[in-house]
């Protein structure tokens, strides 16, 4: 069986109908466990105090903000190369999710930064590249809405997605490229010395899993909606022709 079978809208609808409830329930379970564990049952950090609890929303949201764009990049490339409509619609479906994840990362980061850095915002490489990523999400969504022909919209948004990928990567590696600014390096690391302590790490893993599963569930659900919208447009256009 080939992966490309799922590019068939009918096959995608059948498969996603089966998978969607599992992803939704698992996402809810992981998020509730991770957030409740992190919020109620972890102690304060010796330097950051209780603000360390913001990590359970900030880090998973920031990770998904970047990963959503990477997913859009892959599906956009599939559209440009193989012209599979489902992949273009999946990219379109993922954009508002990525936008919300970026917004959560920016808001929770600002609220966390104020007591720790003494400022809500600073033009630091990571913060600035995240703001630009947020603007790219807005532009991407606006472009889909502005172009009437869906295939042309998919072409143009795919190109925009390729360009925006530079900023998605910068958002991830900005701290490493420019070793300056207020934002710290990655919280998660394979090196035990630099990785966050297990007390924070385990609930954080649940939250990250919850955000990933929620993203997958929402992409499946929203892609199903986009496929149905496309079908409605096709029927209406056919009726108009007589």
């Amino acid at each position, binding site marked *: 069986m080939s992966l490309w079978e799922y590019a068939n809208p009918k096959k995608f609808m059948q498969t996603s109908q089966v998978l969607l409830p599992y992803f939704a329930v698992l996402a809810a379970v992981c998020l509730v466990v991770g957030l409740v564990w992190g919020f109620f049952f972890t102690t304060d950090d010796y330097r950051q105090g209780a603000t360390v609890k913001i990590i359970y929303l900030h880090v998973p949201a920031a990770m998904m903000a970047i990963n959503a764009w990477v997913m859009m990049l892959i599906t956009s490339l599939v559209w440009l190369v193989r012209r599979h409509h489902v992949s273009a619609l999946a990219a379109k479906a993922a954009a508002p999710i990525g936008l*919300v994840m970026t917004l959560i990362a920016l808001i929770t980061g600002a609220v966390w930064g104020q007591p720790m850095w003494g400022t809500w915002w600073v033009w630091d490489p990571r913060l600035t590249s995240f703001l630009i990523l947020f603007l790219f999400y807005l532009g991407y969504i606006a472009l889909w809405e502005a172009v009437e022909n869906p295939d042309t919209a998919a072409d143009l948004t795919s190109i925009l997605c390729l360009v925006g990928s530079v900023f998605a990567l910068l958002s991830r590696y900005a701290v490493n490229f420019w070793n300056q600014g207020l934002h710290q390096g990655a919280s998660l690391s394979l090196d035990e010395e630099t990785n966050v302590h297990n007390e924070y790490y385990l609930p954080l893993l649940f939250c990250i899993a919850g955000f990933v599963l929620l993203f997958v569930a929402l992409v499946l659900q929203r892609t199903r909606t986009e496929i149905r919208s496309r079908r409605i447009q096709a029927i209406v256009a056919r009726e108009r022709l007589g």
Partner: protein
Amino acid sequence: MPDLGKYALEISAAYGAGILLLVLLVLLSWTKGRRVRRQLRELEKRRAKRG
């Protein structure tokens, strides 16, 4: 409720905003999905009646 000390406002604001945005995203995706599914069903029923 854990003792959040002097950072209670910041932590509550971060959790409030983050969870509100997540809930809004889920609700809006779900309600749009339901609306579009109903529209398509009605459209296909109408087409089936016409033959």
